[in-house]
């Protein structure tokens, strides 16, 4: 009897490991190990040609004491994250919620429209034409012909213009992963809850949103928040595609575009890794705050 039970337990464990094992082994090899090596590398100098040499905390000290560019880059990263993160998070929920109000065929059409920038490979290209800096650029030619400006604007040389443009494009592109996750979550809230809500006197869609929909979406909102943090702190391809690297006076460059340059052009992988670790620490801190805030939704 006792022996049988032991066999059952062993079998059960075996099945559990069979289910999660393949993922965990590959996850360890493809993600955990590279991340750990990257963290280790941040304490070394490594030019990708000769062997890494131990540097202690040099890379981190350099970041905060010697590097003149880093404070600007750090500030830009934060500014862009604050301007795009919360807005992207709200927008991807609100649009998903609005779309979910429609019938299935219309839903598919509308969600497809918003997902297009994530679906096509060259979404950024169109913005390079719109914001071309000569008088042929669409925005310039529109403003010139309406007499709003007298000379074509250098969109990406002007600090006051480049940040708003990047924010708009980032938001426009942010209807991706978390947007679709929100849509699939919204469709899964138990319909009985809405009927019960009707009985309890919920009168319009706004009350329904706060008392039923949002609490039913908690898990998806956490997913969405983490994905938004990851993308809001990592904006870089928009800037480098539209304005090149570096932008005038590093006006819009972020940690990611900086560390890519440090690694690929200057071959300082140790310093690039240290920047990467620094960025991770920032995102980790933000995530901890957001997790606490999300627990209060719908209460």
């Amino acid at each position, binding site marked *: 009897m006792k022996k049988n039970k032991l066999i059952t337990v062993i079998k059960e464990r075996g099945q559990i490991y069979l*289910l999660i094992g393949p993922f*965990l082994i590959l996850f360890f090899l*493809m993600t955990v190990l590279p991340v750990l090596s990257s963290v280790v590398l941040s304490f070394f100098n490594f030019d990708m040609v000769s062997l890494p040499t131990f540097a202690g905390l040099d890379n981190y000290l350099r970041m905060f004491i010697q590097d003149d560019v880093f404070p600007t880059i750090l500030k830009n990263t934060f500014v862009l994250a604050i301007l795009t993160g919360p807005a992207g998070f709200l927008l991807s929920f609100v649009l998903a919620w609005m779309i979910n109000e429609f019938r299935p065929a219309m839903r598919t059409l509308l969600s497809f429209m918003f997902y297009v920038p994530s679906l096509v*490979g060259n*979404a950024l290209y169109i913005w390079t034409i719109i914001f071309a800096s000569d008088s042929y650029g669409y925005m310039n030619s529109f403003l010139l012909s309406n007499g709003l400006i007298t000379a074509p604007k250098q969109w990406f040389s002007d600090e006051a213009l480049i940040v708003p443009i990047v924010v708009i494009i980032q938001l426009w592109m942010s209807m991706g*992963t978390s947007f679709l996750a929100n849509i699939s979550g919204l469709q899964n809230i138990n319909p009985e809850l809405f*009927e019960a809500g009707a009985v309890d006197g919920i009168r319009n*869609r706004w009350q329904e949103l706060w008392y039923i929909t949002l609490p039913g979406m908690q898990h998806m909102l956490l997913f969405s928040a983490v*994905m938004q943090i990851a993308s809001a702190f990592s904006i870089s391809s928009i800037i480098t595609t539209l304005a090149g690297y570096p932008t005038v006076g590093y006006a819009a460059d972020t940690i990611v575009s900086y560390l890519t340059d440090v690694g690929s052009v200057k071959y300082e992988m140790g310093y*690039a890794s240290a920047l990467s670790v620094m960025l991770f620490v920032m995102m980790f801190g933000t995530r901890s705050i957001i997790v606490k805030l999300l627990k209060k939704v719908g209460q």
Partner: protein
Amino acid sequence: MKINLKFKLPQKRTDGTVRKYTRSKFGNFMFFAFLFLFGAFSVLPLIYSVVTSFKPLDELLVFPPTLFIVKRPTLNNYLALPDLISGLNVPLSRYLTNSLFISIAGTVLHVIAATAAAFVLSKVDLKFKKTIFLIIQLSLLFNAYTLSIPRYLIYNGMGIIDTYWVYILPAIPSSMGVFLMKQYMDGYIPDALMEAAKIDGANYLRIFWSIIFPNVKPCVLTLVLFAFQSIWATIPTGTIFNESLKTLPTVMSTISAGGIARSGASMAATVIMMIPPIVVYLFSQSSIKETMGSAGIKG
């Protein structure tokens, strides 16, 4: 909350969808107008790419570029593609087969591994599962740039450089898929479902495959889309040297690198590359809607 005696329950329409009394017609209209306006803005890159791919050379070179108008549509850009590729010693069909093979194999393996892992993390007792899940979440916050060197060394150590595995293995343990699936199971698959099956004597493998998997189909379809999209667009750097193992995006990017004279052909290539992800999107999202009870309103 006060009970409202004059409540109306949601009414079934003749087509089986439900009309909610909490929705005003005016509100519905405003939602639609708002969504359509913003949605139209999002579809621009798609329209632009398709229109441009049908432009003859002289129209492509017009300044300022006409974004959405083609006066004399032509198929020449598409017809030129086979010629541009004929210089390579591997036929186009080979690249296409490679792309389809790695995308489908990678997607299937990722979805199964991720769903199984999420099942254990969400519904099964396992030591350290909270820690494992936290690590999976946090891995999404580490910038991928500095991971490329450690990853290369790992591929090298595994002896998978210059094989299909370089495409497929890294795609399997994508943290995002597990994170999304785990959130979905936490939110929408009741633990009672699991308990009932256990009492009936079903083992974990059986519970996973015949009870959990069918019930998370909407989320599975979303994972299929995300995985396919990302594997389809992958361009390996420094891990594939054998021409007959290369994929479509690599070929297409060599066409695009051909400068302005090839801008028409490169746009045609871009459009062709978009088709499979769009097909997968439409398949995945419309099937999701079929599997759900619909509570829509008239668009």
